[in-house]
């Protein structure tokens, strides 16, 4: 369980990106964080693993206070939090396998990691995860040879191989096409379900947030303005989060989503749980 209390972040420029956030994320909950650009979504999740240092307030992960940790302890704590990034953030000149195994760096000694001699259990787990996301046939490809959706799946594997207690997900679909976006979101949610992980997902796309998250938190100018179920996002609430706009069509579209989905997925959807690997291979077949 993640607890934020009175979390404040003030940048050197004087901008107050977060103005006292109180938020609890129970175990196993997938929470979507929505809000306009500049609302502080990225800052919020980066304050959790301290890629951004919070100015004030407390962050507790399963009872451990994270804001006061020294460098060594912080590294240990970061191992327990997997992060998935907007532009995938794979190290482009490393192979798929190296990128995935880099998630084990915190558990591996320097020389072992330098010579890429990871523990066999880590390598087994990497293959298992890559198989799960349908990329086990591409382990030695360089990350920059992959398509966007494939890269993001590698990013997911890198986060999960850390064996985290919490996933921090920053705009996972921002640079993906609508279909791949859904596949990635579904994959993240399925994996969270399988592993009983809680997740905070920053996302621009209100539709996707409503489709996949169990809970929605709306952030505006560093303050929480909505916290509730996906169904509670009425035009009024969206106006409160994003400002005046015609929201009716957005909400209607969501209500139609469930029907759409099967058509959207084409034949692969028939595979049920197996769909992710199948999709991966089909995409590859199309590419090469």
């Amino acid at each position: 369980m993640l607890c934020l209390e009175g979390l404040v972040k003030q940048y050197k420029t004087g901008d107050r990106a977060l103005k006292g956030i109180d938020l609890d994320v129970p175990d196993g909950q997938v929470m979507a964080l929505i809000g306009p650009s500049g609302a502080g979504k990225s800052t919020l999740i980066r304050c959790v693993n301290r890629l951004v240092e919070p100015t004030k307030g407390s962050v507790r992960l399963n009872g451990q206070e994270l804001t006061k940790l020294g460098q060594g302890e912080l590294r240990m704590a970061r191992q327990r939090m997997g992060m998935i990034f907007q532009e995938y953030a794979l190290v482009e000149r490393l192979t798929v396998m190296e990128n995935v195994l880099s998630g084990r760096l915190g558990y591996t000694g320097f020389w072992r990691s330098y010579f890429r001699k990871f523990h066999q259990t880590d390598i087994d787990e990497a293959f298992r995860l890559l198989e799960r996301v349908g990329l086990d046939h591409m382990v030695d490809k360089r990350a920059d040879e992959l398509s966007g959706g494939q890269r993001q799946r590698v990013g997911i594997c890198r986060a999960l191989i850390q064996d985290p207690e919490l996933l921090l997900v920053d705009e996972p679909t921002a640079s993906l096409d609508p279909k791949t976006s859904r596949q990635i979101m579904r994959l993240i949610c399925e994996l969270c379900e399988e592993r009983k992980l809680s997740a905070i997902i920053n996302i621009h796309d209100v539709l996707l947030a409503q489709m996949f998250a169990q809970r929605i938190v709306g952030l505006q100018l560093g303050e929480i303005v909505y916290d509730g179920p996906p169904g509670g996002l009425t035009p009024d609430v969206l106006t409160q989060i994003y400002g005046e706009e015609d929201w009716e069509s957005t909400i209607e579209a969501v209500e139609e989503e469930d029907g759409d989905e099967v058509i959207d997925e084409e034949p692969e959807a028939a595979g049920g749980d197996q769909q992710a690997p199948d999709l991966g291979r089909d995409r590859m077949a199309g590419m090469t």
Partner: protein
Amino acid sequence: MTAATSIGPSAPRRWKKPPLISNALVRWCLWVGAGIYLAIALGTTEVNWGRVLEGVPRGAKFIGGFFPPNFITNLDEILSGLYESIWMTVTSTVVGVALSIPIGLGAAKNLAPAPIYYACRGILAITRSFQEVIIAIFMVKLFGFGPFAGFITLVIATVGFYGKLLAEDIEDMDPVQAEAVKATGGSWFQWINYAVQPQVMPRMIGLGLYRLDINFRESAVVGIVGAGGIGVVLNNAFDQYDYETAAAVLLLIIGIVMVVEYTSGYVRKQVQ
């Protein structure tokens, strides 16, 4: 007037690229100033055309003296000079690059804390402030004639060149990739190895080969002030008006530089 709303045949709105210097007075003063300076500079340069004309046949004779290049008479000297130069080049590049890595890491603003950053930038500024020949003269005074002085000179020059470019390349890296590896909880050295090194490595290999090429050419120059290598042979040949040998040395230098050039081009293509 309804001009704002009508799309009638009113005068088309003109557009011109905004000038680099927006103040017209400053802009014109700069042009006029530059023109006056150029006129004065040209007007006060004395060219003795007579001497230029005399120089042309002398130059032709000089070049004629290079033919045919003579590799044979002083072969032993040439070979030992070349051997010294190649030794100097390879050792100074390896040692220089090895020393540059910690200094370059320290001189990258996004890696190093302020005191280390300024210290390393200071080292780079000092090593870069003197031309190789000046350092070589100093080193010859310190260590005496011979290739060791040349070796030290080229190490210093390599650190200045390679360290600065390494630091700048690290500063230009993609911060998101670096952030992602940091988020996995790896140590600082693991972070350097997994996030920074892959991003800068291809360029660094290319620059290392480029520096190898520069160091070979510089090894000829520092030889002229006594720091060993092929430059000493070249200088002696000129001093003794032995232009055939000098021509042979020059051809060898050109040949080796070309070989290094093509090899480094090939290697750079492979590592991209």
